[in-house]
């Protein structure tokens, strides 16, 4: 099976998200304003309900109840509403268990949120597109869902390779299948009409040095943030430490990275309580 064949398996892969790719494109547009975002979110009742629920939760503790989207934007600001929509939308895809990889219900979502929270802190200077680091963090492992649904039975052999040859998971996938979950995720996101700012860094998260120059910093930040989420303990699954960390992939002081991890851990706890992220 090729990666193209995998993502063409529309009978096994979930349908494309409606709101999130459009929302990312709005954030790219310098002329867009909050009314464009409110109008878009209003088209999806489930996302709207999720935004209101989270806006009113202990994660934000608004001074007065948030009753509609205009309220949410006024109270929290457009950037925070963008993050909330990302979180609520990605939950539909990331909340399920992936038994082929020993990933329990909610674990992939919690891991992805931890990566997003770290990215938010360490990758600010890697892009001028507001909210992009957070989106990358939330979607970086979407390929694992595609792999589980499309070729999950292969993971017995993939894990055998990891354990006997001490290979990282992405390398074991590439040797077994000819592609890894980063490439699968990148292709899924491209097919779902996300802009290249999203799917290119995700493609190169395990080998950021090879990313096109415009996206090298973002891919490097993802490489490091993925490890940071593991430090928090958000890396359920078998052989979850089977990572090759590339030296010089992303320039950051050790103490700065560890502080970002500690801060992410605090925010993650609030989100867990508010949305049930990662509660299994």
């Amino acid at each position, binding site marked *: 099976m090729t990666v193209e064949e995998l993502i063409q398996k529309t009978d096994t892969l979930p349908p494309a998200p409606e709101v999130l790719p459009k929302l990312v494109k709005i954030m790219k547009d310098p002329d867009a304003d909050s009314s464009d975002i409110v109008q878009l979110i209003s088209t999806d009742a489930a996302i709207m309900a999720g935004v209101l629920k989270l806006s009113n939760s202990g994660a934000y503790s608004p001074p007065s109840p948030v009753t509609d989207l205009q309220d949410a934007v006024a109270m929290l600001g457009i950037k925070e509403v963008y993050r909330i929509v990302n979180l609520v939308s990605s939950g539909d895809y990331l909340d399920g268990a992936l038994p082929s990889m*020993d990933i329990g219900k909610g674990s992939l979502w919690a891991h992805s949120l931890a990566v997003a929270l770290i990215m938010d802190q360490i990758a600010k200077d890697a892009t001028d597109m507001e909210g992009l680091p957070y989106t990358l963090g939330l979607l970086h492992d979407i390929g694992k869902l595609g792999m589980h649904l499309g070729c999950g039975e292969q993971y017995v052999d993939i894990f055998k390779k*990891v354990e006997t040859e*001490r*290979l*990282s998971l992405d390398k074991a996938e590439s040797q077994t299948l000819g592609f890894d979950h980063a490439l699968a995720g990148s292709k899924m996101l491209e097919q779902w009409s996300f802009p290249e700012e999203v799917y290119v860094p995700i493609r190169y998260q395990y080998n950021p040095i090879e990313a096109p120059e415009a996206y090298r910093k973002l891919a490097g930040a993802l490489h490091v943030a993925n*490890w940071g989420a*593991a*430090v*928090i*303990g958000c*890396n*359920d*699954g*078998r*052989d*979850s*430490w*089977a*990572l*090759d*960390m*590339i*030296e010089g992939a992303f320039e950051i002081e*050790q*103490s700065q*990275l*560890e*502080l970002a991890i*500690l801060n992410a*851990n605090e925010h993650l706890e609030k989100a867990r309580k508010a949305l049930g992220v990662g509660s299994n």
Partner: protein
Amino acid sequence: MSGAPTLPSLFQQRVVVGVGDLAVSNNANVNLSTFALGSCVGIIVYDKEVKVGGLIHIMLPDSTLSPDKAQKQPAMFADTGMPIMFRNLCGLRAERRRMRAFVAGGASVISGSDMFKIGERNILAVKKLINALGIQVVKADVGGVNNRTIHLNVGTGEVTLKTPIGTSKISLA
């Protein structure tokens, strides 16, 4: 009746210790548990004489990174959390000379600089502190690339270690 719980198991209570947290107990019906130790290190300490046990789940080796956060959550760091656990154990009449320990976790990446080998740094910090206190370590299951889950039965001193590869039992009694 097949599969019916035994009477003692009906009274068992589980206390789950989260990341950056600790618990001690002298209640024989309590199981102390912590889940998914990756690079974090879990330390279980037990005194069989008084049936007192403790468990701590540390994330980072050194509190100088953030004294503020260490003040709020001392068990996040090895150097601030472990002394508190030993103080709390002694508060329940455990004695250092009788304590026996089990250490687990400290997974690290397959390759990368020391910066990314946080599991190894955690193990070193924990070993240094345990040695300084003169505590006997019965077993250490550390390193590698797997997550680990550990449980202590406070009534018996039995430790259960679960990894994706299997489950094993160790007695600290």
